[in-house]
């Protein structure tokens, strides 16, 4: 995409002019906070014109959102986060001309991030093989009262993140993909080339291991 841009200066100028006419001005606007802040569309127009200062603002404004999202989705593998965030911003630049302003720029960027995260899940689930010895038998309790209580009291978030870090990567990835990204079993099965039943079994084991760790971590406090 960037290679095509060299000969597209006029087309881009027209696009920017149209945007400017439509929006009135490309000048910085006064936000409610009292600081000058460009609107999403003005910012995009300036980044496309390769204004380096606007590009810096683009990074400053959205890096935290994208990083936060990727970090939460890659809980077990924090070492991949920086590279993935970088890929997302490069992909954003390469597709920025397609941004029409129908949704906020933040949502548009998070859409790209979601695709990249799912690419990562697909790749990891195909690459990693679960080690059988990592699974151990567990007498599952008849009810999950404590887990439910923690959820009801909205105190489950931090602990959930900690447990995800300790699970074998296959399990944390499948849980994140199914419940955090809300993907159906069928979608996941298609993406990783397994049967729906196979994914369901993997997910059941992942849930069981998660609950096991939840109760193991709780035991010392109870004793």
């Amino acid at each position, binding site marked *: 995409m*960037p*290679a*095509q*841009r*060299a000969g597209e*200066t006029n087309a881009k100028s027209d696009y920017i002019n149209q945007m400017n006419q439509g929006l009135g001005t*490309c*000048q*910085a606007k006064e936000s409610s906070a009292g600081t*000058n802040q460009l609107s999403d569309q003005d910012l995009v127009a*300036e980044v496309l*014109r*390769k*204004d*380096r*200062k*606007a*590009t*810096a603002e*683009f*990074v*400053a404004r959205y*890096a*935290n959102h*994208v*990083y*936060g999202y990727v*970090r*939460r989705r890659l809980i077990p593998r924090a070492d991949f986060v*920086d590279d993935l*965030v*970088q890929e997302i*911003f*490069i992909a954003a*630049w*390469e597709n920025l001309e397609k941004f029409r302003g129908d949704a906020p720029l933040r949502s548009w960027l998070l859409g790209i991030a979601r695709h990249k995260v799912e690419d990562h899940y697909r790749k990891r689930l195909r690459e990693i093989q679960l080690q059988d010895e990592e699974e151990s038998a567990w007498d599952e309790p008849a009810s*999950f009262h404590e*887990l*439910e209580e923690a*959820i009801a009291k*909205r105190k*489950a*978030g*931090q602990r*959930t*993140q900690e447990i*995800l870090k300790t699970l074998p990567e296959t399990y944390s990835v499948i*849980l*994140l993909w*199914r*419940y*955090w990204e*809300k993907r159906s079993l069928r979608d996941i099965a298609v993406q990783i080339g397994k049967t729906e039943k196979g994914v369901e079994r993997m997910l059941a084991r992942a*849930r069981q291991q*998660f609950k096991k760790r939840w109760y193991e971590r709780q035991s010392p406090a109870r004793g």
Partner: protein
Amino acid sequence: MSDNLQHEDRLFELLAQQADEAGSERAPSRLKAKLYTSLVQKQQESGRLLTLAESRANGHGLCVFEDLWSDLTSAEAAQSFNCCSVCHARVLAEHWEAVPIYWGHCPYVAFGKK
């Protein structure tokens, strides 16, 4: 789907929701610096950057180095040169958090601010 399975699915959906709400981390300033550097590099691959004079006319402030560069040079190619590529602030910011540089309008300094 059995009732048990539905219940368990619901539990995990709530766990996911609460884990997402459990706080969001800021991107390290080091990463922001690298993101900015790679984006500007990508922009340069497809032609010149907007000149510093045009950036200033758009309402953006220039750092002391860019200001000096802008006043000393007039050719468009020189004006479009990415001064940051030879600036120590970039090198420091890409390797350390919150580097002790206090130039106004330097993007690398700004990334380190809370």
